[in-house]
Each structure stands twice: as C-alpha cells, then as structure tokens.
C-alpha cells in the first residue's frame, strides 16, 4: 500500500519541521510549502490525500487559497483542514469552505487523529 500524502501550507518553519518529522515517522509522505504561490500546480503535482492550511499563508491567505482549491472540480474532494490561532476559527474555516479545523497551538496526537479521520473516510 502506498503512503498517504499530506500537503502542508504554513510559513512557520518550526511548525513545518516538527509536523513533517511526526507524520513521516508515522509512515506518511509529506510535502510542505511556505507560501500559497502556485497552489493549484503544487496540489496537482503532489496529489495529496489531505491538506493542512494555515490562515496566514503568504501570497493569498488561507481563506482565499482554500476557496480557490474548492472552486476547482478536480481538487474539491481533497479534505482541507484549516489551522489557525485566530479565535474566529470556526467562521474562517466556514468562509474558506474547509472540511475541518484545528486550533493552534495544537496537540500533535489530536492533529494526527484528525488527519487519520479523513484518510479513513
């Protein structure tokens, strides 16, 4: 069975480094991006099973980036988990049309559980 693929959009290299280590240790294939530049191309090339999207991702923010993905038929079914420290997380995730959300700072086990939930579906 091939490894499940996660694409992470976050501009905080600390977070990217730790999440990558954790998910790779658990057998996932991880691709990271510090910007939403060329997001459609990145998603098209990597074909992720799930996407983690930070609210403050540079270029276009997380809301617009997620909306852009969801407006394209070929990417619409890829689950997007919205990640932010913003108190308005529920509204932002809804506005973005994300499938779910995780508040920062997150518990790594909770994040893994949430990702796993979408990969099992």
């Amino acid at each position, binding site marked *: 069975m091939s490894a499940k693929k996660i694409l992470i959009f976050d*501009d*905080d*290299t*600390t977070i990217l*480094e730790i999440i990558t280590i954790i998910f790779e240790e658990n057998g996932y294939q991880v691709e990271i991006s510090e910007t939403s530049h060329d997001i459609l191309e990145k998603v098209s090339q990597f074909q992720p099973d799930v996407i983690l999207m930070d609210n403050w991702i540079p270029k276009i923010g997380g809301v617009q980036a997620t909306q852009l993905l969801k407006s394209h038929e070929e990417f619409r079914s890829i689950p997007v988990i919205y990640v932010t420290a913003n108190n308005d997380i529920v509204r932002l995730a809804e506005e973005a049309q994300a499938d779910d959300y995780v508040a920062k*700072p997150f518990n790594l*086990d909770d994040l893994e559980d949430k990702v796993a939930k979408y990969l099992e579906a």
Partner: protein
Amino acid sequence: MTSASGRRQSICNTLIMETENTKTELVVIGGSAGSLQVILEMLKKLKNGLGIPIVLVLHRKAYSNNILQTLLQQFISIEVVEIDDKTEIQNNKVYVVPADYHLLFENKNMMSLDFSEKMNYSRPSIDVTFKSAAEVYGESLVGVLLSGANADGVEGLGFIKKNKGKVWIQEPETAEVDYMPKHALLEVACDLIITPDNLAGYINQL
C-alpha cells in the same frame, strides 16, 4: 586508515576525559535549519530528574508565538519553559528562547531578554547566548551546536572554549544542513562530536 571523522572523534574523547571532573551546571544548545529533529530525539530520551537546566537557542521566524514550547512539551515530561525577561534558572527544566529576542545570563540564577540588533542575521543569536553563558558559567558550561545553514554559534563556541567550557558539535554527516557544524569543527577544538542518537545519553551522564 582512519577517517577524518574518526580522527576528530578520538581527539574529542581524549579531551572529554581530561575535563570530566568539572561539574556541569548548564547545557546550552544552539541550532538552526534541521536541528529540531535532533532536539526531538534528545527530548524523548532525556531522563527525568536532570540535575541541570538545558537552554535551547533555535533560529525561528520573528513573529512565532509560543508554539515551539507547546509542541516540544508534548515529547517530554520535564517542564519546557518559554523564557520571559528575568526568568529564574532551575534544574530539571528545558528552556526555550522566544522568537525575536537575544538571551543573556545575568548570573547563575537569572536570564534576561534583549532586543538589540540581530547578529549573523539572527535574533535570537546563538553567538550572543553562548558568549553570555560562557562569561557566567565558565568551565561548568557545555555548549552544543547542531545542524544549520549559517555560521551563528561558531564564534560563541570559541568563546566557551576560551572560558574553559566544553564544546560539543553535531557530526556533520548526521546533520540535515551541515554548514554550521562543519564550520564549527574547522574553527573550534571540540570536546565531543555528538549524533542525534547519543546526545541525550551524554547529557544524562553529566
């Protein structure tokens, strides 16, 4: 034939034996790109009841919040503390320097934060903290330099050495980004070359 890294290893071990009677009071670990993998591996293996404090000076994005402390705490039962200005130093704690501040040691009981210019394009700068710690702790300090893409920390390691502290450097072949440890090995006489697997073991023995 002995490899270059083998020669370095034997020199380092000899020096460690010569200095092993000095009681270590503080370990300061500096790292940049690729260092978190080593830190996580170390945290998982550190013994509880550590008789010393450990301070982590890691290059981070300027406006990071306390996410590093929160994430690291999930790997270890020892308390991980993000340093505030005038934070008291206590044994058996792991301290993390906050983003966008330099860390200084006022004395062996107190740390302070400083917002002066960046050093080596970095704030926190590993050099700044290594030098400050070396002045306060002298021979009872261990300075560790890990993976990274610039030379921050190398000059500080030299200062630690000059003040009779111990210098540990990550084996460049095990570093995700080897520039920082490679440069350090060229510039500073190290006491020990460490790997991600054995760092915690050496700290546990201090």
